[in-house]
């Protein structure tokens, strides 16, 4: 498949636009000077990944990303930012001063991963996807073949819920505990 063929397909135009926006937002997540902006750019980056999932016919996962990440996790993040009173305006001390080594390391990771995937899957094409994966197939897989992992994940969520409440709860002082015991 030549480059002219690749660029000729409309779906690849969509990919280029969405991918560019996703990467730009991802870059802003890690470089933004404003904490709230960084969290909001994560919304854009995850929205971009949801669009990519739709392109790859993974409709259910795309909407799960929108609901869980953009709907719930981001609210949690904004809540965390507000409650830790992180400076919501510009803050120069937000980043560590040594940026060279992390930049080199992440560049090297990118080169390694990129080289590995180019080497292994040179021109593997994603064939015409046709119908999107139906929620029925996913639901049957989740409650059939993968029912044990599914239950384990539910248990993790329950443990996280209880753990989160326990960790974040304010410990009572001995005096308060005594008063509570007296009532």
């Amino acid at each position, binding site marked *: 498949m030549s480059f002219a063929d690749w660029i000729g397909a409309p779906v690849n135009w969509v990919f280029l636009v969405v991918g560019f926006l996703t990467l730009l937002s991802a870059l802003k997540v890690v470089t933004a000077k404003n904490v709230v902006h*960084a969290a909001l750019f994560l919304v854009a980056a995850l929205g971009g990944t949801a669009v990519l999932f739709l392109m*790859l016919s993974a409709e259910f996962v795309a909407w799960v*990303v929108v609901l869980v*990440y953009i709907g719930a996790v981001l609210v949690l993040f904004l809540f965390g*930012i507000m409650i830790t009173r992180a400076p919501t305006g510009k803050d120069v001390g937000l980043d560590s001063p040594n940026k060279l080594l992390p930049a080199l390391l992440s560049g090297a990771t990118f080169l390694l991963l990129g080289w590995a995937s180019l080497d292994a899957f040179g021109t593997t094409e994603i064939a015409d996807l046709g119908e999107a994966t139906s929620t029925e197939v996913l639901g049957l897989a989740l409650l059939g073949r993968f029912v044990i992992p599914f239950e384990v*994940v539910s248990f993790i969520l329950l443990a996280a819920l209880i753990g989160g409440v326990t960790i974040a709860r304010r410990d009572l002082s001995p005096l308060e505990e005594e008063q509570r015991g007296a009532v």
Partner: protein
Amino acid sequence: MLLNQFLILAAAMFSLGIYGLLVRRNIVLILLSVELMLAAVNINLIAFEAVLRTSDAIGQVFAVFVITVAAAEVGIGLAIVLMIFRNRKSANVDELDLMRW
């Protein structure tokens, strides 16, 4: 569509996550970078599923699992951040050196 275009996009996103993880000093921003890396992993899972077309949509099932575990991680992570902030009045990782010798 080539498989590689998705894999390389995911690799770029993962590398940006690593950069953010190392450079940021605010705990909440470090957690944001971790989310980026998890999203990159999900792109890979979905892209491989689109190539392999397994009968049970295994790639998508595992993407759902990753999202669930990520949600649990954020919940616990922010609870820990809250507690650290209450005890130390700071969310800056450079100041959290209590366990360093």
